[in-house]
């Protein structure tokens, strides 16, 4: 089984599904000859030709709109936006059309498209290249929002996203693209959407995250294990629709929960998770649910981004507050 990093796993999933399904098309800026600015689409032009691997003009609204048009005709377009901060010009298309064609026409037309973009900071890039946009899209009815955190999940969830009959916003963790490798089998098997993954079982605290922040959550769980605290680690994976059953079952077991997100705090998806726990799991809690998040400010440029993005220490600090409130018996 090959060891792949996350960007290679994305490439493998695209190649694998394009091989299986002639209706799968890739489009976006520099995705053809250049193989994508992160090389997610490298080799696809040679393998599948320029009709199926489409270098588009430099126009993000057009890319989203073109994907919509292709999807209504039965193709399975996978559009790449080079950074999630450049999905904002697509929002009119995604919110007003992709998410609505099925509803608007009573399923006469539908939009089985994927919009892929690297999401989050930590790569010392210019302004607009480090945004965390998942909550913005997750607010929109009719969409799915997916954020993998490992190469294997990137492969399996991207297959699922392409096969899904409705629009999926697929947000890849930019700073994990080449951070580590993992065995990824090209077996063509999709992972389930709408399902959170219990990555590590534990008894004392439920730690919930997604995307790139999962890596810091893993490190925090390791540190806590050394201190004798058993963490149940959950990768939300599909942001929308949110698998609260898995999170609530874990909280019922542990009684403590900390949620980690990179995006600004107010109106972030951690808030949605915390509200659901308050509504459905209050009596299982020993302590308030705490959030670790980015700040309610503009994502800073490179010199300050490490101060903005939550890290293991910030996660540990919030976890310690939980145990101060409700010490382990």
């Amino acid at each position, binding site marked *: 089984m090959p060891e792949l990093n996350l960007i290679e796993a994305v490439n493998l999933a695209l190649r694998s599904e394009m091989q299986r399904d002639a209706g799968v*098309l890739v489009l976006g800026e520099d995705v053809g000859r250049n193989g994508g600015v992160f090389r997610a689409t490298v080799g696809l032009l040679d393998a599948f030709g320029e*009709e199926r691997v*489409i270098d*588009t*003009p430099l*126009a993000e*609204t*057009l890319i989203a*709109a*073109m*994907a*919509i*048009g*292709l*999807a*209504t*005709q*039965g*193709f399975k*377009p996978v559009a790449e936006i080079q950074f999630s901060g450049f999905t904002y010009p697509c929002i*009119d*298309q995604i919110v*007003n*059309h992709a998410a609505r064609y*099925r*509803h*608007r*026409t*009573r*399923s*006469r*037309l*539908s939009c089985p498209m994927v919009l892929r973009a690297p999401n989050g900071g930590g790569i010392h890039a210019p302004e607009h290249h480090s945004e965390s946009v998942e909550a913005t899209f997750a607010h929109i*009815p*009719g969409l799915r929002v997916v954020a993998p955190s490992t190469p294997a999940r990137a492969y399996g969830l991207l297959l699922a996203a392409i096969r899904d*009959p*409705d629009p999926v916003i697929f947000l890849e963790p930019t700073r994990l693209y080449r951070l580590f490798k993992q065995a990824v089998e090209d077996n063509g098997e999709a992972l389930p959407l*709408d399902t959170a993954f219990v990555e590590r079982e534990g008894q004392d605290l439920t730690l919930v995250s997604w995307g790139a922040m999962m890596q810091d959550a893993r490190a925090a769980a390791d540190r806590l294990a050394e201190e004798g605290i058993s963490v149940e680690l959950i990768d939300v994976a599909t942001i929308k*629709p*949110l*698998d*609260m059953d898995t999170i609530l079952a874990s909280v019922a077991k542990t009684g403590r929960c900390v949620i980690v997100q990179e995006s600004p705090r107010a109106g972030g998806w951690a808030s949605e998770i915390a509200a659901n726990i308050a509504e459905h799991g209050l009596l299982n809690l020993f302590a308030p649910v705490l959030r670790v998040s980015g700040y309610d400010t503009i994502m800073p440029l490179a010199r300050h981004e490490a101060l903005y993005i939550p890290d293991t220490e910030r996660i540990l600090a919030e976890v310690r507050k939980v145990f101060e409130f409700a010490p382990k018996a």
Partner: protein
Amino acid sequence: MSHSSPAVERVAQFEVTYTQYLDPEGQPRAPLPDFAQDAEELRRMYRAMVQTRAFDKKAVVLQRTGRMGTYAACLGQEAIGTAIGCALRAEDIFIPAYREYAAQLLRGVRMRDILLNWGGDERGMHYEGCAIRHDFPLSVPIGSHVPQAIGVAYALKLRREPRVVLASCGDGATSKGDVYEAISSAKVWNLPLVFLISNNQWAISLPRGRQTGAQTLAQKAFAGGLPGEQVDGNDVIATRAVLAAAIERARSGGGPSLIEAITYRLHDHTTADDARRYRNEAEVQEAWQRCPVKRLKQHLEARGLLSASDEAALQQEASAFADQAAEEFLATPPASPAAMFDHLYAQLPKQYEWQRQEALARGLKPGH
């Protein structure tokens, strides 16, 4: 050292033409195209325009009497919709804005369904049982449907299907980046695509002259490498002829083009608008002289193709159709409250099932 002028050469040159066959009194200005030699075909086109006008009038009445929501009338623009409906083949794909009812009716959309949509029922754009079900629904946001035509036309080309996409929008939409991105990219892939701009001189309260300083809207095509031309959009013969040429050029691999059809919005923007706040009544009265229905009627009469009794019969039939459509619309019971969830996804995620159930239960309570 001597002064010398830089070498300046002309590297591109553009020209915008304007086509008209019938003058405002219905007199031919040139030999008519083949379809207009055919009396039956001309009468079919006139019938479509008369029916559209009767439908439009009925829809406004339904709104004014509180039986339907906000409606965007097409009064004065019946020729453009009729030309689209006649120039496209059934297998072509029409991506409309929201005033091309004549085209929709000719392509088999039922009047009842158009009323259902404006009357607040999503089933109006399902086109159940209609002959053509691959057209796009009305698009309420301005211009954002136009770049989708790139993807649709790309799909047809990729499948080597001899089909054409026609995307229409108004004069206001040409100010939007979405429309520019579509025009700018269409020629890159030489797509089988026609852009039609219905320039009705007004975007709610903003007149055409304040939308852009461009002399014509047709010239916007040139920036994208497309042919662009104007046509008299109140002359149904000219509009159909110009459209048909563009459509068949696109079908035979000649690529995309753009047509600006010049017309006039005789009604308020919608039933929620009062154009007297911003528009001179004399301008509207003057525009009535160029009414497209009157023009074709006078032409038919002059050729002896429409008698007074023919006209009376057509008007009566059109009113009856509109009345019947209104009755069907009003007699259609609301969908189940679950309908707001039933086409959100191919299969509703279990996460939202409780909301669907709650809506269903609330719908059963008195007062709903």
